[in-house]
């Protein structure tokens, strides 16, 4: 059935969208509802004519925001939600994304009116409850990563990277080392690392990974010099391997006069087991929407608090939460601070969910997160290692890396494997990342998946490998055939971008 829409004929539209696939409903865009606006929503407030001063600026043409009745609105969005896959729907093994179960109690407490409906500029004495939670979160995060000084302000991981690099730059400038403007970034790093360095007015040198996918010490040494500001390292790295030379790496960078930035995207492998601060990392951002289980929301919000050691603590952004004898305060100025990186104290609603999550595990259980996450990844690796090419040997941490090298011989690529997984009921893994191997498939099961789920995912992966061997390539090239939409034409979307529905 085609969905080229006929604007002039409301019945035609209605007819198209009444069709169903089982109970999976087609649903028009809001702009295609063809009826007069229903009675407007009832709103409180003050009536009265507006002054001529203001009406002189009145909007000349209406915005054309469609108006749906409440039942239509609910049905519209609920139907659309049913075209989505979420962690509550099923397995979501996106490598480097840590798609774990998001506890419902966190939603419940974050939506309490006393936490959701408070203004960031109301007097401090009227928000002591939330300040206490945030102060506690600051302290807990610092303790977990071994870097005691924490800013909650960055809104996401990449924002944390920028904030951390700003602090590093400020520290180096304070030492009079204004020439240190080079950031070393392994070629396996997330793209945000070099992008954040550029935004901080620094330039990037890419370090070629060694044969084992880890940082090559000789390559590192060759690029360390008096212009080095920092090394940005992700540990475990994006191949899922722990950088076992971390102590020596940090020592080399420090000896060369630079600092070490830790990308905390993969902290889930370490939480409660080992601490980046103990290893020599000076500064680390924490993706609370990964490790600390705040929901991803289809792309965000997240939060990217940054934890630092004593070397960098004077440069933390403001505002910063402090505590005196009887109350919590927002400290808004400091001579050495890098200033503000956000218009507010941070993504408070996200951060208090992280607090609830840490509280649920507590001191006694936190290490079980990393243990089960690493166990699950190694279990998947073990089950798939004969059917798929494993580029780097050894145990993995919280995620495992495979490639399509074996399947390539049958004309099957990583993309085909990913799309076939959808037909078999699974969200695909991260594909074509990291860039250091060809046809990467990065699988991060997380700790909240049962053995039964892992087994059925591995069975599906093995079935795909078998289908490749058997030459059933058409099945894979056509995949997916079962979901609400089949492969989408990304070339068409990018060549002639249509980013808004015409009026």
């Amino acid at each position, binding site marked *: 059935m085609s969905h080229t829409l006929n604007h002039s004929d409301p019945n035609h539209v209605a007819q198209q969208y009444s069709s169903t696939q089982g109970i999976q409903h087609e649903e028009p865009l809001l702009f295609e509802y063809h009826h007069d606006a229903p009675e407007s929503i009832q709103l409180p407030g003050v009536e009265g004519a507006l002054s001529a001063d203001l009406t002189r600026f009145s909007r000349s043409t209406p915005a054309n925001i469609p108006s749906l009745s409440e039942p239509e609105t609910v049905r519209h969005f609920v139907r659309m939600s049913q075209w989505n896959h979420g962690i509550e729907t099923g397995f979501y093994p996106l490598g480097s994304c840590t798609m774990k179960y998001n506890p419902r109690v966190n939603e419940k407490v974050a939506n309490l009116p006393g936490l959701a409906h408070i203004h960031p500029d109301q007097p401090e004495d009227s928000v002591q409850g939330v300040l206490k939670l945030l102060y506690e979160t600051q302290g807990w995060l610092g303790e977990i990563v071994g870097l005691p000084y924490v800013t909650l302000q960055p809104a996401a991981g990449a924002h944390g990277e920028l904030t951390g690099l700003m602090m590093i730059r400020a520290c180096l400038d304070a030492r009079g080392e204004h020439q240190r403007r080079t950031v070393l970034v392994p070629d396996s790093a997330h793209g945000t690392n070099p992008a954040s360095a550029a935004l901080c007015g620094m330039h990037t040198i890419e370090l070629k990974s060694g044969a084992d996918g880890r940082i090559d010490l000789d390559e590192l040494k060759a690029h360390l010099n008096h212009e080095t500001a920092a090394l940005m390292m992700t540990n475990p790295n994006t191949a899922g391997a722990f950088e076992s030379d971390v102590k020596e790496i940090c020592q080399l960078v420090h000896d060369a006069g630079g600092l070490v930035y830790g990308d905390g995207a993969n902290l889930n492998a370490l939480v409660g087991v080992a601490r980046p601060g103990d290893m020599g990392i000076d500064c680390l951002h924490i993706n609370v929407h990964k490790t600390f289980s705040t929901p991803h929301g289809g792309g965000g919000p997240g939060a990217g608090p940054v934890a630092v050691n004593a070397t960098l603590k004077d440069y933390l952004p403001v505002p910063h939460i402090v505590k005196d004898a009887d109350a919590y305060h927002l400290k808004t100025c400091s001579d050495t601070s890098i200033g503000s990186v956000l218009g507010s104290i941070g993504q408070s609603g996200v951060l208090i969910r992280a607090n609830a999550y840490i509280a649920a595990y507590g001191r006694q259980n936190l290490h079980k997160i990393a243990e089960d996450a690493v166990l699950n990844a190694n279990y998947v690796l073990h089950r798939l290692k004969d059917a798929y090419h494993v580029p780097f040997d050894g145990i993995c941490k919280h995620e495992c890396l495979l490639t399509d090298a074996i399947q390539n011989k049958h004309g099957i690529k990583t993309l085909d494997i990913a799309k076939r997984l959808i037909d078999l009921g699974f969200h695909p893994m991260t594909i*074509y990342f990291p860039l250091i191997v060809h046809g990467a498939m990065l699988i991060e099961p997380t700790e909240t998946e049962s053995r039964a789920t892992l087994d059925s995912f591995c069975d599906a992966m093995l079935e795909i490998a078998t289908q490749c061997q058997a030459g059933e390539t058409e099945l894979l090239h056509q995949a997916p055939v079962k979901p609400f939409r089949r492969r989408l034409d*990304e*070339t068409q979307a*990018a*060549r002639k971008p249509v980013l808004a529905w015409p009026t």
Partner: protein
Amino acid sequence: MTIPADLKYTKEHEWVRIEGEKATFGVSDHAQEALGDIVFVELPEVGRPLEAGEAYAVVESVKAVSDVFAPVSGVVIEVNGALEDAPELVNSDCYGAGWIAKVQIAEGSVELLSDHKYSTFLEE
């Protein structure tokens, strides 16, 4: 894979057609195939002086971006405006309708390869 004999090539997979004091630039068949479906070409401004080896245009596919480098020095005298609406011409006719820019040649050039040498280079 076509490699016309009347053009010169670079190791960065650009081609150049030199006609007197003018030259036409584009990307080779190998380059367009490696990039996949081209979705956008960022063209240089007319009048911009280019050093040989300088990035003067950007070719984008859905998931990749490539700088395009000038094979010889010169000043841009014309750009292929048709690519703004139809970047796919780089895929369908890279040596013809998919040309990118024309320059008034100045002194300076990167290493230019004949069709034979470029073909050998690709095999290596």
